[in-house]
């Protein structure tokens, strides 16, 4: 195989080089594959370990724990409220950001990302500094007879702040994908600006909006740090499922594991549902109109 002639010296050299490259390439590929597999395992390991270490007895004990149903109910209620707040404010915000051509919208986008990079503990203390009894608005609100901190409203507020970026970023990306010329066409066909937004931009962006809403909901459901600091851990009032897990861990690990399994299961179902929903929607709208 090896060439010996002068003409082939160079190609042979290149072949050697290629062998060397492919050897380091193979090593790199192997290392990369191993690291990727390890990370993937680490990602599924917590849920897997929970499922494997929880017997039906433990699960039953966890579900019968007096803190379980109040915590589950509170978690569902508050996370749905915060999801509603996130969608109600996030949709018009994302639409305005996506449609704007002003350079200043970059700053709005960065502001929206702030809660993602700030530690939840910082957000919790920050919310206390705003709404706590000694906070910026605490005195004024107290005069009106409203106490936000350590209430269910505080839980909703903490979840809203933490979850909103996930929805808004996803919604901005979805609205940016909508063809601006399609919106102009809708207008020339007689639709007002609001009409075009509701009937063209919103449905065209729906898959991205739904995915973002799911992420935000999952994030709200799992919120822990900011809630603990700003809303406290009051059973039946502000103790959400993640906080109940934390409280149970100090008394009975089995209960904590069972509660964690339930919360993990809900999150997983949400994720799977979200992956499937947009495709399902598309399929449904695809065959909706039969021409009679």
């Amino acid at each position, binding site marked *: 195989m090896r060439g010996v002639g002068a003409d082939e010296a160079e190609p042979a050299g290149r072949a050697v080089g290629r062998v060397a490259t492919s050897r380091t390439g193979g090593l790199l590929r192997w290392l990369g594959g191993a690291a990727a597999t390890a990370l993937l395992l680490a990602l599924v390991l917590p849920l897997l370990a929970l499922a494997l270490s929880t017997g039906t007895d433990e699960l039953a004990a966890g579900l019968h724990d007096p803190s379980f149903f109040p915590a589950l109910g509170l978690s569902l209620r508050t996370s749905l409220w915060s999801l509603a707040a996130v969608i109600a404010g996030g949709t018009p915000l994302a639409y305005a950001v996506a449609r704007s051509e002003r350079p200043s919208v970059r700053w709005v986008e960065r502001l929206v990302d702030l809660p993602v990079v700030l530690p939840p503990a910082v957000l919790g203390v920050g919310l206390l500094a705003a709404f706590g009894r000694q906070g910026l608005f605490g005195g004024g609100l107290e005069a009106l007879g409203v106490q936000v901190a350590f209430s269910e409203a505080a839980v909703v507020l903490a979840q809203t702040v933490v979850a909103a970026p996930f929805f808004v970023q996803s919604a901005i990306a979805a609205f940016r994908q909508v063809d601006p*010329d399609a919106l102009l066409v809708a207008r*020339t066909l007689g639709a007002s600006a609001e009409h075009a937004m509701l009937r063209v931009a919103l449905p065209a962006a729906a898959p991205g909006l739904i995915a973002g809403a799911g992420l935000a909901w999952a994030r709200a459901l799992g919120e822990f740090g900011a809630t603990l600091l700003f809303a406290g851990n009051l059973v039946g009032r502000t103790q959400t499922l993640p906080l109940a897990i934390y409280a149970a861990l100090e008394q009975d690990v089995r209960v904590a594991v069972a509660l964690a399994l339930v919360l993990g299961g809900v999150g997983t179902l949400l994720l799977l549902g979200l992956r499937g929903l947009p495709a399902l929607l598309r399929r449904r709208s*695809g065959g909706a109109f039969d021409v009679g």
Partner: protein
Amino acid sequence: MSDDTAPNLSLNVEAELGALRLRVALQAGERPVAIVGPNGSGKSTLLRLLAGAPIAATGSITLDGRALLDSERGINLPPEARNVGYVPQSHGLFPHLSALDNVAFGLFDLAPKRRRARALAALTELGVAHVAARMPAALSGGERQRVALARALVLQPALLLLDEPLAAVDVAARRALRVLLAQRLRALGRPALLVTHELRDLRAIDPEIVVLQDGRVVQRGDLDALRAAPANAFVAELVDAEDDDRREEPR
């Protein structure tokens, strides 16, 4: 639908958009007007401006005696009040609606049954009734163009705007669509502005040609006039290209 030979559309506008400074005056009656020019010369911007896109502009646009834009009197009608049909280069089809629902979109004052019948009739006229139930993503370039055209025409607009109507259509479907487009435009009886690069389109449609460069009109006239005395190198090359493509496409 139209009255006389008086121009239905007259515009005299100035607009600034990024680096582009658009300054155009033109009139159009029943004969279609083709806007040609190099990329970035303001062709698409001009159509968007006529459609009512939010572009800051001064001057006036009058359609059938009605002011769409009159910056001196502070008039700038929104797109929905202009009665203009617009087919953008991207087609602008609504991705979540079937072809039929796309065409029916603008017919909201009709009862559902009549709405569907009218939309279906519009699709039939453009030879695409068979794709009525399909979503835009499942259509070919030519089918999309026909659906977008049907959607613009179904409202019988006072002015039709077509941005490169044949650009995204594959070669096999292009000739048939070109013939159909020329027919439609001839039968329209309304002013139409179309942007095009293709000399074959110009030959088939026989419009008045307006050459736009750097936002200004550098020459206007029909194809023969442009060939007889091209105003500059761009126009001359256009004429050359025509000779080329005649050789390419023997009849």
